[in-house]
């Protein structure tokens, strides 16, 4: 029952995303053909060629027919051609996606680990100076726009100190092998650091508040009365605090991917984010729509992962069978 509801929910989200993709060019002022195949091309066409192009782009017929053919295209992974690059949108996406994953996944893991550790530490020391400083520092970090932090990191560590390259994801010329891998890793450092620092805040605050909640619970008193030491007691509280943190983390994939868009732009990192930015600059509409759809799918994948794995971390969802028995 619950699973069916969830799946329906996700199907609905995909449908809404597709519909937005379909409807936005129709609602926006301008020539729908320009949106589909690019302005330059659309304007030079003869009326006959234009009619043919309209038909190919699925822009003839009633709105409903257009919608139908659009959905059909989307389901067969035909998202049109990039007006800027001339390649199928799907191919370009497949090309760029791995780069984004390479910086987003390490950032997710890193920021989660650091934030949970710091959050638990701050909560345990609530009311002390350390908590105050951590909280202030993290709130400051959270109020920085990711792109700005990226620019500052480039200026300091890339330009002034010269420790890291400031541009791209891989060297243009390389012999391959270990030196190539090292160069790629080196170029990952600053983007990963930026995304990690920017996303630290929300995880930290959530961990801290969930941890404070657990620390005030009766089972913590029981743990103390048992004679459990500090480490055991922190683990008692943290194990419970991890539940909301875990859910939030899997769900917040979308924020992270979103953050990657602007950060990639600053670092000219050839992932999905810069792709989106380049398409915006070139008004490459099919490409933009493709990116939007891809990120939507990624978010849903994150949600499904959360739903599937949550029972592993919370026993209360796992078993519903009441057990009883007194002698």
């Amino acid at each position, binding site marked *: 029952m619950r699973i069916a509801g969830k799946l329906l929910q996700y199907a609905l989200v995909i449908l809404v*995303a597709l519909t937005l993709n379909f409807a936005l060019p129709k609602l926006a002022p301008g020539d729908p053909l320009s949106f589909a195949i690019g302005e330059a091309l659309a304007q030079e066409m003869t009326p006959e060629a234009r009619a043919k192009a309209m038909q190919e782009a699925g822009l003839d017929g009633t709105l409903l027919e257009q919608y139908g053919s659009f959905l059909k295209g989307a389901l067969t992974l035909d998202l049109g051609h990039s007006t800027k690059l001339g390649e199928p949108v799907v191919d370009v996406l497949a090309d760029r996606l791995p780069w984004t994953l390479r910086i987003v996944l390490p950032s997710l893991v890193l920021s989660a680990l650091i934030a949970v550790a710091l959050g638990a530490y701050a909560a345990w020391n609530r*009311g002390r100076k350390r908590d105050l400083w951590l909280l202030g520092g993290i709130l400051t970090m959270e109020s920085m*726009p990711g792109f700005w932090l990226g620019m500052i990191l480039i200026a300091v560590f890339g*330009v002034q100190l010269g420790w890291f390259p400031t541009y791209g994801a891989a060297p243009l010329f390389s012999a391959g092998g270990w030196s190539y891998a090292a160069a790629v890793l080196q170029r990952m450092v600053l983007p990963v650091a930026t995304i990690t620092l920017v996303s630290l805040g929300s995880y930290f605050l959530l961990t801290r508040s969930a941890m404070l909640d657990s620390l005030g619970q009766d089972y913590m008193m029981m743990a103390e009365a*048992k004679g459990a030491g500090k480490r055991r007691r922190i683990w008692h509280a943290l194990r419970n605090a991890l539940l909301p943190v875990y859910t939030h983390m899997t769900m917040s994939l*979308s924020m992270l991917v979103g953050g990657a868009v602007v950060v990639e732009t600053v670092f000219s990192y050839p992932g999905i984010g810069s792709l989106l930015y380049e398409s915006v600059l070139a008004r490459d509409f099919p490409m*933009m729509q493709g990116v939007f759809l891809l990120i939507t799918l990624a*978010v849903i994948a994150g949600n499904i992962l959360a739903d599937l794995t949550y029972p592993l971390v919370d026993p209360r969802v796992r078993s519903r069978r009441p057990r009883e*028995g007194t002698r």
Partner: protein
Amino acid sequence: MKLGTLGGTGRAGMMGRIGLFLLGAMILFALLGPLLIPHDPMERTGAPLAAPGDGHLLGTNDIGQDILAELAAGARVSLTIGLAGAAASMTIGVLVGVLAGYRGGWTDTLLMRAVDVSLTLPFLPLMILLGVFLGPSMSTQILVIAILMWAKVARELRSQILSIRTRGPVQSARAMGAGDGYILRKHILPMTLPLLIPQFIQAVTASILMESSLSFLGLGDPLAKSWGSILFYANARSAFLTDAWIWWVVPPGLCIVWTVLGCSFIGYWLEEKASPRLKSYAAPAERGARGWFRSRPSRTAASAAKAGETLRIDGLTVEYPKPDAQESVAALRGIELVVKPGEIVGIVGESGSGKTTLAAAIMQMLKHPAESAGSIRFAGEELTELSDRELRAIRGHRMALVPQAAMNALNPVWTVRKQLTEAITCHRKLSRAEMEKRIGTLLEQVGIESRCLQAYPHELSGGMKQRVVIAMALVNEPAFVIADEPTTGLDVLVQAEIVALLQRLQQQLGISMIFISHDLPVVKRIADRIVILERGAVVDEGDPEQLSRHSTHPYTRKLMDAIPSIGRLEQPLERPRPAQPTPSPEPLHAAAGR
């Protein structure tokens, strides 16, 4: 003042003040800046990329526009969009939230579906897509912000309304026959409004950040300068590759940080004020360190311990200093108490009498601001002088606590077996087989079937949980157990079972026990001696029979008389009867069942 003594609210208040200062200063800058700075941000007024100084406090950008002037103009744009975007999204969110939360049913289902979908869609890409198709302008930015942020507000508000709807004031108004309009007007809105303010602050923060991202991606109003668009140009000209980054890139970002930080501090402060739950925990004082927890064992008492006493308390006083006032609230005043081996001492008191504080004081587990004085000797050892480590070795090993609210005393994410095992491993190393054997005996004693070991707490009934908690207290064979309200919250039938169980265990194992309860009949049943506690002081003491028959203390008498004895009232209604009600003519349901 020392930071530590500021406590939760004080610190939050300080953050609130800092936040108000940050935000206020930025608003002043936005209002007055353009009037005071002699340069027009749109005009070239200096050399390109001029360093700070020379009439341009923060230098110029690549076409020679004054950066300070740009920042002031940007402050106006960013703050305007921040406020307008927040206001727009709050308006939609509040409407949807109230409608969904209050109407319920299909309206709720449909609206919440929409909210969920909207929250699942990826935020930033959607923002970019909308920005591109709607064309860059300030009104687009506000619209995009509203479209993206209403859902969060709606969801929060709905859940708040749902919870308020089940609360007492609304329920009683409905029982009085109040209509929807009345309840909404008189109860729900006044209760939700204070909660909306932190939400609004959050929305402002998010709007400002979104505006800067949109502008940074070139989707801002091309005619207006905002902090984001300054950074857009700086990025496009690769300002961070030159020295100009210090005056061109850093200041606009600092403006954003300044404003957003101001808002988050205010938001944090308001939230802390609104949700007292966060006040429930404060870091424990480190023992021995100079801090809040001071313990002064009185010298007279230290010598008074006699052999043959399990526990001896002398002159125990516990106070909770009030954060604002000088005087403190005394929870316990000069308690004298002795527990002999094998004795059950019942401690009876009503709410506020200090019963639970007494249990915590004996366990040396008093909560944060408490200050205690006096002596607590357990088997000859002065507990107030022990280190954390020494205390840990005693707690749960030689002296155990069955805490109040045993319903929640088990950690919900672990099985009963794991929690019982942990109680053992805290104190001693046992082989697997020994462990199994010990747990087996224990389960036998408290009357739990061994299959319950695999269970998680939520799978057990209240009575079973209480038995598990008792088992956990007894697992290391302590000499002394404090049972704090062990029957509260249980049904009468289960209460009787638990009391019988504790009595039997006490006899079998020969432990001493303090049995704390507000329920005099229960204590009378189990205790060898009863101590009556009133507002933190022992007012009467004696064995149950003697207290209930002969005590002349007015408070004791009041408690004794409050027991609605069914034995004493042979004729249950000693009041004049009203016109004899006609006995029920309805068929007895029970008759069919028999």
